[in-house]
Each structure stands twice: as structure tokens, then as C-alpha cells.
């Protein structure tokens, strides 16, 4: 039993945190809101240089050959800065879906390009209403009628749907499956789709941890500076307790996210339950973080001017995508109400 991240993973996290907090500032995010694509090729280039785009690409295809557990702490940092680029989707969802498929041609063509930052891949599942970043994806992996297809950008029609979070770029994607490549059919397709869904949900959960911490940090700073009745409002117990109430569920969501990442990386049989547990708890913490943070900001929190909303809006969006609370609590319910469910002390780590 070793429920800790290793030194390398923690150091990598630290390095990525330093980079992201320096480069992906609220000012930079606001600048990107004003651009057509909302994306920065320069920033993508930097992420590539750090090795991040190729992190889960097997070494044979020019990547680092790492797994979901290696990436989960980095996904947390992506959440902390509300990274607009499709890094989590590419590294955590798209690449492993392709790697897990049996289509060698697709892998040979696309994985090296992803590793070197030359291409991105979007994933569209029927569980998700819309496809994130379909507009800049060179390849789209699309679930349709129980099959999984690979479609190139030129062969899709996109309809933009604006999200509450201006950084998120969402599209209704239409394509003609007779002109698309079949990645997998039947059971294989469903296994790939379920895997993608789990990794997408893990990505949301990990980012939710970072977002919650960011909202706490912003709120602590604000309430330490803002004075009313002659003192900093952060000295008021009612304000303190709002933030403590966010810190508690955040603390208890962290290990669930680590367990979910471990379950995915090691094909643990309880993976669906573990992922849903993590997403439900982490996103619930981030929703409470958003609600309490806006409250302690008072009227300032309701403005476009204060940066808080950048992170609140991402938290609201991530709670609803890659399976909402109803979906994930439903999967947990199915597991724990089953007749043969192993519950209670001593069964947490049973595979």
C-alpha cells in the first residue's frame, strides 16, 4: 500500500504549476476571449516544449509513454489556472482512446503529430451534448450509433454554441459516417467510449480540485484586504466559516481523484464507481467553492471585472460535462445497491 505520488510526479506538478501560473494569467485568458479561435498556438507550443502534449503518447510514437496517474496532478494545475487550451482533452481523453484502439494506421499517423504539438484530437461522445474544441481539432473521434469513428476536420460541419465560460468552445458536430474511418464497432467501440468517458470525467474532477483551490485563494486574498465596519471582512467568523466549508469537502475529494486515476491507469474492476465517486465529490466541492466565493466577494463578485468569475464559470461547466451529477451518482448507486456489492470497512481497496 503506497497511497502517495512519487517525487518525480510531485516535482513535475510543481514545474507545471510555476509555468502555468506565470503564463496563463487572468489577463491572458481575457485577451484570448477577444480572439476568433480563443486559442493560442504560441501557448500550445510552450506546452509541447514542456513535453505535455506527448505525455501519454507511447514512446514508440515519440511521446513520453506516461499514464493517467502521471497526468492527474497536472490536470489539477490546468484547473487552477483555468487553462483554455485543450490539453486535458488531448492528453487524458483523446490519446489514450486512440492508443487503446486496435487501429494501427490511425496511431501511426496521428500520435507522433500530437506528441510534437502539430495536431490536436477532439472527442465527441453521445453522453456529451457538444464537442469541445472541435474547431481547432485536426482529428475528431466521434461516437455514433454505437460505433466510434475518426473524422478529419475537413469532413465535419460545426455549429458553435456559446458557453457561460467564454474560454470553452463548444460545437455541434455533423459528419457523414460513410466518409469517416471506423475506429471500432460494437463492444470494442463501447469499451473505448466508456474509457474516454471515464478519463474525461477524471479530467473534470482533477481540474475541479484546482479550481476550488484557486477560488479559495482569490477569496482569502480579497477578504483579507476588503474592509467593512473598520476591519478586514475576513476576520468575521461568518466569512471564515464559508471558506472553511469549502476547504473541508475539497480536502476529502483529493484522495478520491487519486484513487480514480489509479483505477484507470491500472484497469481496476471498480473503475466506473471510483471515477464517478471522484467526479461527483470534486465537482460538488467546486460548486460550493463558487457559491461561497461569490458571496464573500459581495457585489464585486457579481462583476465581470473581478477575476473570480473566470474560475466560477469553469467550475459550473465542468460539473455538467462528461457526465453530470445525476449520471455519476447513478453509477455509484448502481454499484452500491447491487445485490453482490461489497460494502463497508475492508472493501475499499478490493479489486
Amino acid at each position: 500500500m503506497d497511497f502517495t505520488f512519487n517525487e518525480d510526479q510531485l516535482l513535475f506538478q510543481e514545474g507545471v504549476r510555476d509555468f502555468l501560473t506565470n503564463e496563463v494569467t487572468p489577463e491572458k485568458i481575457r485577451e484570448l476571449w477577444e480572439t476568433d479561435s480563443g486559442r493560442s498556438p504560441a501557448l500550445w507550443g510552450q506546452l509541447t516544449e514542456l513535453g505535455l502534449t506527448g505525455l501519454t503518447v507511447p514512446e514508440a510514437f515519440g511521446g513520453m509513454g506516461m499514464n493517467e496517474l502521471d497526468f492527474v496532478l497536472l490536470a489539477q494545475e490546468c484547473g487552477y489556472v483555468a487553462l483554455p487550451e485543450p490539453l486535458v482533452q488531448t492528453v487524458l481523453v483523446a490519446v489514450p482512446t486512440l492508443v487503446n484502439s486496435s487501429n494501427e494506421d490511425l496511431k501511426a499517423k496521428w500520435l507522433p503529430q500530437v506528441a510534437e504539438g502539430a495536431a490536436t484530437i477532439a472527442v465527441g461522445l453521445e453522453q456529451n451534448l457538444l464537442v469541445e474544441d472541435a474547431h481547432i481539432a485536426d482529428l475528431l473521434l466521434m461516437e455514433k450509433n454505437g460505433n466510434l469513428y475518426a473524422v478529419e476536420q475537413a469532413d465535419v460541419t460545426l455549429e458553435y454554441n456559446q458557453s457561460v465560460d467564454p474560454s470553452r468552445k463548444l460545437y455541434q458536430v455533423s459528419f457523414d459516417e460513410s466518409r469517416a474511418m471506423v475506429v471500432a464497432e460494437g463492444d470494442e467501440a463501447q469499451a473505448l467510449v466508456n474509457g474516454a468517458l471515464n478519463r474525461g470525467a477524471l479530467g473534470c474532477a482533477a481540474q475541479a480540485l484546482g479550481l476550488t483551490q484557486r477560488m479559495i485563494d482569490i477569496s482569502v486574498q480579497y477578504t483579507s484586504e476588503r474592509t467593512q465596519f473598520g476591519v478586514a471582512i475576513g476576520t468575521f467568523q461568518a466569512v471564515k466559516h464559508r471558506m472553511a466549508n469549502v476547504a473541508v469537502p475539497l480536502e476529502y475529494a483529493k484522495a478520491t481523484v487519486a484513487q480514480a486515476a489509479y483505477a484507470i491507469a491500472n484497469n481496476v474492476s471498480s473503475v466506473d464507481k471510483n471515477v464517478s465517486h471522484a467526479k461527483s465529490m470534486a465537482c460538488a466541492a467546486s460548486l460550493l467553492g463558487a457559491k461561497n466565493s461569490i458571496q464573500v466577494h459581495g457585489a464585486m463578485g457579481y462583476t465581470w471585472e473581478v477575476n473570480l468569475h473566470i474560475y466560477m464559470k469553469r467550475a459550473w461547466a465542468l460539473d455538467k460535462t462528461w457526465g453530470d451529477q445525476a449520471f455519476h451518482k447513478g453509477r455509484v448507486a448502481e454499484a452500491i445497491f447491487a445485490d453482490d456489492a461489497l460494502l463497508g470497512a475492508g472493501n475499499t481497496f478490493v479489486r
Partner: protein
Amino acid sequence: MMDLNFTAEHDAFRQEVRAWLAANVPAEPLKTYDTAEGFQQHREWEAKMNEGRWGMVTWPSELGGRDADLIQWLIFEEEYFRAKAPSRVNQNGIFLLGPTLMEYGTDEQKAEILPKMADGTEVWAQGWSEPGAGSDMAAVRAKAELSDCGDYYIVNGQKTWSTRAVWADQCFGMFRTDPESKRHKGLTFILVPLDLEGITVNPIPQLDGLPGFAEIFFDNVKVPVNRRLGDEGQGWEVAMATAGFERGLMLRSPARFQQTAKRLVELYKENQASADRDPAIRDAVVKAYMAAESYCLTTFETACRLIKGGKIGAESSTNKIFWSELDQTMHEVAMDILAARAELEPFAPQAKGVGSWLDGFLFAQSGPIYAGTNEIQRNIIAERMLGMPRK
């Protein structure tokens, strides 16, 4: 490398615990230790545990323990709760005073006190709270004055809400040795035998009507000076160690809440037809199960970190809030499922086993209060963990 599997040694340890408990846990549940008869039964159980060297698994082997690390301790707790073994009458001694004695006690004190604690000969009560000092422990007023000869302290004052003090043999607590001192200065940690002349123990009935608490009056009680733990005036530091990391982690192991969550799932399934009249109940059961699992995961994660030399930080203050409010919530949900039967005491003819939920519900009301109220814990989290400004 993260590895969420138990080692072969851990599995073997689990089997050993499981086998011993299967052979030794009393078939009939013991009476509550808040009765004289139940207290005696629990003493005997502690003695039996000690004989099997299962009383204090984390203690060194020369003291009758098993040198168990934190993972083994968690495994032991899992098996203990699964086996429905009796609750520990001496938990104040085992989990609070024991570790503190190991750190601050003299060799003589350890030799005299620990073996009797381990076999249940001496059960310990805590003497923290006073009528004017609950969660604000620095407001302690009960005083201890060193005698002219320097052989003993003369103790005067009152302690209250002292859990299990009615039948306990000893109590530990902080007393003000410097009458001029204020707040946390001038306090001394003293171990007081409750049979000394000048001590009066008055039972305080708890919500269930049983004398689970007591108030203790000290009237010129002579306590030998060798019953002081640590130096004079060092009481606050010693008390903080007692309330420190061992307590943050060891006060309530996850197994207890996981077993309650399991029972809650079973209760829901047995009563699903009526429970589903309120769709919120099903949701609450799922959330309670997830929270209990989260508590388990987080505790194992912390234990692994500590074993590797890590430190437990201010984030440990989140523990107390999390488990105490989870315990309350789970029992509230159970009450909702039981509906009209929820108010029945265990001995009511129609209770048919549901009465234990009422017992648990009553006890759960104390969780957010004892060991420092959750309001105090929230202040600690806000100020020390999040860095919000003090007054």
C-alpha cells in the same frame, strides 16, 4: 509508485486479526459502559484483548503492543468494526494519554501507568473541560499549588463533562499552577487518581439518560508530584501534543463510519418502498456512502504520507468536521427511512432492532461538540490552513 494493494504482510496481519476476533468477540453485545455492569464487562474485554496483545497494536512490543504501523492500525480497526467488537472503554487512555505519555512521561511513569492502562485495570477519564472552559481550553481555572515540602500538589476546583469519569479510576487534565498566569501560560498537566481524598464525582446524565459524563470536584486533593506529566508550566504544550496528530488521525477511524454507511445502504434497501416516497433519501444514502469512502481514502493517504516521513498539517483540522457531520447526516437519513419507528428506544417491543439507530442518532449529536466544537475547528481551518486574518 502508487500501489493501492495491501502487501502480503498486511493481508497476513488482517487474517490474524480476523481469526482472533472471530474466536474471541463476545457473542452477545456487552451492556453499555455507561452502566456499572457494562463497565465491568468492558474492563474484562480489555483484559482479554491485552492477553492476545491486541489491546494496543501500535504500542511497542515490550509494552504488550505489536509495533503496528498506521496501515496495520487501520487494518486492525477495519476488522474490529467488521467483527462488531465492543467499543473501547479506555479510548481516552489508549489514544490520547498513551501516546502523550510515550513522549513526555518519565520511565517510571510509563512503567507504572501503561501496563495497567493496557489490561483495563485502570480506565482513564479526561479532565479537560470546566464550566468556563469548554473548547476554550486556555480558560482553565482549576488550580494546583505545590506544597511547601514539594512532595505533592494541592488541587482545587472543578472539571466537568468528563466522559466515563463515573466509574473511571484515573483522570488527566490541565491545572493552573501559576495563579498569576493568564490563558495558556502557567498550566500544568497532572494525572489524578480519582480515589484520592477530597474528590467528589457527580454523574451527569447524557441525552440517553445514562451517566456517561460526570463533574469532578477537587477539594484540597493531595496529588503526588510524580503524577505531573512534563514540567510545571508545560501543560499547554503537553495538552496540544495530546490533541495533536495522534488525535487528528486516531480519534475516529474510518471503519466506524464505513460500517454505518453499509448499514444505511442495507436499511435503505430493506425499506426501499417506503423510503422512496422521498427521492432525497436515495440521494442522501449515495452521498453518505461516498463520504464514508472518502474519509477512508483520505485517512489511508495520510497514513502513507506519515509513514514515508511526511507531516500532517493544519489540514488535519478538516477531519473532525468531516466525520462528525457525516455521522450526524447518516443517522438523520436513517431516521427518515425509519419514519414512525425512528423514535423507538432499543428495548421498545416494536423496535425490532431499529432502536440502535436511535442510540447512534443521539450519540451523533455530540460529535460536532466534543474534542473542540466544529465552530472552533472552522476558525482553525480558516486562520491556520487558509491564512485568513485573525481579529
